[in-house]
């Protein structure tokens, strides 16, 4: 089955891995399609959940959403395994590789030796593909990197059994059966509407409202004597958006690309075009927002909370408009 495998670099690890995995098992699916059809665009701001003492901020749905939903949406049978015993997990993985069967893994970035040192933080939901093994080293197709990587089996096992929030517990997955006649157009329409509704949710910490909640929080920040916290808070937002969220409003551009692709499936093209442009606008606003955050944390005396908050609110209005449009599909 592996003959059709081709390593490619992607904007987002999970959608990238799913795209490569399904493509090499015979179902050609692009990264934007994998991302869009699982309704993965989102915004979450959870002040109660802390990561390194900072609130949880995410620009897309929770990790594993794509893997879990793709089987539901497309009727694909996926094998998903978690392990208690690291030795067994490694044995199984070697077995898959020897049968030249491509599998996806969830890992922690911190324990992967091929990552640059500066990028290694305790982020437990990084996805990659294992494509081969030479002696004790696995060959890895990691969507973040341009080329194939190599990783010692002990280190990889450590990364698979990292603990903490989103602990992978050796999570391994691959498609078992892909139906021959997959009708994308029906799934796409449903997925777009579902995503639009999710963005418009009345729950105040998610979607459009979540963005405004965060904007309000930023507008209330005061510099007096906690400069360090403000600097860390602002750069934390940027990190969640850029480092983990791929290039500014990367997920917004990814979703815009999906909407363009969706035009080929018998849906109202003008709505898709307009919404796609709105998401690009939102992505642009988010990039400017990130630049403002960085500028302010470099020169805190010039920190203007209102301007920054307004930028985020601006992005939220574009997304609201786009979601309202898409709901009508």
């Amino acid at each position, binding site marked *: 089955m592996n003959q059709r495998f081709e390593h490619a*670099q*992607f*904007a987002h690890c999970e959608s990238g891995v799913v795209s490569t995995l399904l493509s090499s098992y015979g179902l050609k699916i692009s*990264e*934007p399609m994998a991302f869009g059809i699982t309704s993965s665009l989102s915004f979450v701001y959870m002040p109660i959940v*802390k*990561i*390194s*003492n900072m609130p949880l901020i995410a620009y897309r749905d929770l990790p594993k959403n794509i893997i879990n939903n793709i089987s539901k949406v497309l009727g694909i049978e996926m094998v998903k395994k978690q392990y208690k015993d690291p030795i067994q997990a490694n044995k199984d993985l070697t077995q898959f590789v020897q049968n030249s069967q491509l599998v996806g893994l969830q890992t922690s970035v*911190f324990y992967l030796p091929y990552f*640059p*040192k*500066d*990028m*290694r*933080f*305790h982020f437990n939901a990084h996805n990659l593909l294992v494509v081969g093994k030479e002696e004790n080293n696995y060959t890895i197709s990691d969507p*973040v*990197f*341009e080329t194939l990587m190599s990783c010692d089996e002990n280190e990889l096992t450590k990364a698979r059994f*990292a*603990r*903490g*929030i989103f*602990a992978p517990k050796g999570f391994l997955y691959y498609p078992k059966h892909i139906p021959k006649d997959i009708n994308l157009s029906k799934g796409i329409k449903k997925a777009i509407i579902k995503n639009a509704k999710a963005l418009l949710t009345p729950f105040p910490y998610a979607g459009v409202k979540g963005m405004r909640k965060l904007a309000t929080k930023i507008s209330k920040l005061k510099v007096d004597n906690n400069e*360090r916290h403000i*600097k*860390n808070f602002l*750069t*934390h937002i*940027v*990190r969640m958006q*850029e*480092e983990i969220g*791929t*290039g*500014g409003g*990367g997920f917004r*551009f*990814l979703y*815009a*690309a999906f909407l*363009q*692709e969706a035009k080929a499936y018998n849906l109202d093209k003008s709505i898709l075009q307009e919404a796609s*442009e709105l998401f*690009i*606008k939102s*992505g*642009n606003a988010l*990039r400017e927002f*990130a*630049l403002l*955050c*960085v500028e302010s*944390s*470099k020169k805190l005396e010039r920190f203007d909370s209102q301007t920054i908050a307004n930028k985020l609110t601006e992005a939220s209005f574009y997304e609201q408009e786009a979601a309202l449009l898409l709901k009508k599909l």
Partner: protein
Amino acid sequence: MEKFEIPQESNATLNGQRKVMYGINESGKFERVNYASSAEEFATQTAIEEFEQLCRESLERIQQEISSPIEYFMYKNRMDLPTLSSVVGMFSFRVKRHLKMKHFKKLNDKILQKYAEALNIDINELKDFTQ
């Protein structure tokens, strides 16, 4: 089609690697392009510097016999209290106590070994901690 810019700055934290994002090419189609963002670079570096500062502050507190070496190595491994607690499999209030020098001194080898494994160091580095 709405246009947008792909940042082509520099990002030293990637150590020569290049990441991709979606951009629009000349014929108006989306495709993956390499990018590098200095905003991302600054944010990552700030996070690293924060951990380095926490390490330095911890060293000072160790000298004053307030904090334990576990705290120093926790920050050195870029962990926070909840992460360390889940790695060693203890309740965080217990781990929090172990971050204090006076409780740390009473710990037995078995518990110290757990911490040493979690923090990827030798047990002696905890026992005979020198700066």
